[in-house]
């Protein structure tokens, strides 16, 4: 309390060293945080439509409840681990536990023109959506009680340290000069790779490959993809942490990549299978969005189109490989987020231009071959870390709580067995 009063008194007699708050920047960041929040119900619909109707509520809940669980985790210690004062370049310490010292004055280390809490709540939405993405890998078979614990453990041991590596003051990838504008490494590769580990540890759905498991409501899925696309303007545009030219540039790149990837996935599938599917166009858009995320604040509009065109086709072919390898990543998180964003982080090393963002670096195409090496090293590090730690977390949960619902409950569905409700009664 005395700190707060001191802060107010201080603001009345501004010292030249105190950062100046900007109302436009603050407004944009708060709106962006709300846009990213909307991606959770968007993801819930996107995933919910892809499962069988007996699992629709259980699947929606896995996205929705992340808003509850991770918000509390973030307030207690998650934010401090991710963005708090550095420990050994790998994680934040616990100085900001319970948001101690995270007040309404700007924290210039992250954002000089907005209240520290605005930055905190914006970053929180990223922490919320990341583990929810993984739920697509083990859809239709995961025990809800275990899922709640998984959310907390995965955020604590995977998301928070990775956010620190890449974005925290003192983080080793940030120090190295690795570029990840809005979370290609932190959000999409980490979730995509965790999904590979999850699909392998949790195992296939009962009857996978023998029974039909078609999506039960693609209209829901396409609406969900549209909400994700809308929210992504906050995800990438908001990551400028200011309203202005950089936010605009990221906003434009986001749209261009999503559009071109929707087209290229649709065309690749059309050529391969004979139908321009709606699910393909929607999946392509999400792949294009996940791909441009790390690059969005560093590349120009035409680069974004090229990145998106490659992303749509690449993710489509990556998805086809799943059948060959035989693992059951039920909603294709590996192919869409993992593969897409791996390309996105590497593409940043090719297409980044300081003419777009002076705080970044030039990529290979703009005469700087060293960036691509740093990007590749970052990708490999995040792949290895996320895969290994996710594997360990799931193995421990398997021994202690059990990962899967019983066979009987898997057949009757998550809605009745886990939640005592049904999604549809008509």
């Amino acid at each position: 309390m005395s700190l707060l009063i001191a802060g107010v008194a201080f603001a009345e007699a501004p010292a030249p060293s105190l950062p100046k708050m900007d109302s436009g920047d603050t407004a944009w960041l708060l709106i962006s945080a709300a846009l990213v929040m909307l991606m959770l119900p968007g993801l819930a619909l996107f995933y919910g439509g892809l499962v069988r109707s007996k699992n629709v509520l259980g699947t929606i809940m896995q996205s929705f409840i992340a808003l509850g669980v991770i918000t509390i985790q973030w307030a207690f210690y998650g934010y401090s681990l991710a963005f708090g004062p550095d420990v050994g370049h790998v994680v934040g310490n616990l100085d900001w536990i319970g948001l101690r010292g995270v007040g309404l004055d700007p924290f210039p280390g992250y954002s000089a023109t907005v209240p520290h809490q605005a930055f905190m709540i914006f970053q929180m939405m990223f922490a919320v959506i990341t583990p929810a993405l993984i739920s697509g890998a083990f859809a239709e078979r995961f025990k809800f009680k275990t899922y709640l614990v998984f959310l907390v453990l995965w955020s604590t041991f995977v998301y928070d340290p990775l956010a620190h590596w890449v974005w925290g003051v003192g983080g080793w990838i940030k120090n190295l000069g690795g570029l990840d504008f809005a979370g290609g490494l932190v959000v999409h590769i980490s979730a995509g790779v965790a999904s590979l580990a999850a699909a392998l540890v949790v195992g296939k759905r009962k009857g996978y490959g023998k029974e039909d498991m078609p999506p039960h409501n693609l209209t829901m899925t396409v609406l969900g993809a549209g909400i994700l696309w809308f929210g992504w303007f906050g995800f990438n545009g908001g990551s400028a942490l200011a309203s202005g030219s950089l936010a605009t540039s990221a906003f434009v790149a986001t749209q261009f990549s999503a559009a071109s990837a929707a087209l290229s996935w649709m065309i690749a599938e059309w050529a391969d299978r004979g139908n321009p599917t709606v699910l393909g166009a929607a999946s392509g858009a999400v792949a294009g969005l996940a791909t441009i995320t790390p690059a969005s604040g560093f590349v120009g509009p035409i680069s974004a189109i090229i990145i998106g065109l490659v992303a749509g086709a690449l993710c489509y072919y990556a998805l086809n490989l799943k059948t060959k390898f035989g693992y059951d990543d039920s909603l294709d998180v590996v192919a869409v987020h993992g593969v897409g964003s791996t390309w996105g982080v590497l593409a940043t090393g090719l297409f980044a231009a300081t003419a777009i963002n002076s705080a970044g670096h030039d990529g290979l195409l703009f005469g700087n071959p060293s960036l691509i090496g740093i990007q590749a090293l970052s990708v490999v590090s995040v792949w290895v870390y996320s895969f290994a730690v996710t594997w360990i977390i799931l193995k421990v949960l398997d021994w202690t709580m059990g990962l899967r619902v019983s066979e009987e409950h898997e057949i009757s569905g998550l809605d009745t067995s886990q939640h005592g409700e049904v999604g549809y009664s008509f």
Partner: protein
Amino acid sequence: MKKIEAIIKPFKLDEVKQALSKIGVQGMTVTEVKGFGRQKGHTEVYRSAEYKIDFIAKVKIELITTDEMVPQVIETLERTAKTGKIGDGKIFISPVDEVIRIRTGERGRDAI
């Protein structure tokens, strides 16, 4: 009296119904059904996962008619339900012992 059951392609229902009305058929029962014959099913692909759909949607028409009307009804069904492509369906004819109109208690031909 005979019962005529015809399994036809759903998009042909309107044309068949109108043609039957025109020759004096005064009632029928229509059901949406699924099944397969020589046409077999088809394949749907969702994100590269193929699902074989064995049963195809068809419409089943059931109607009761007098013995004299049977050739005309069959001719009408054959003519209007036909596309010439595989999956046009089948017609089954079977004898009917009795017909009763519930409201009036009429029996036999009068009840048709």
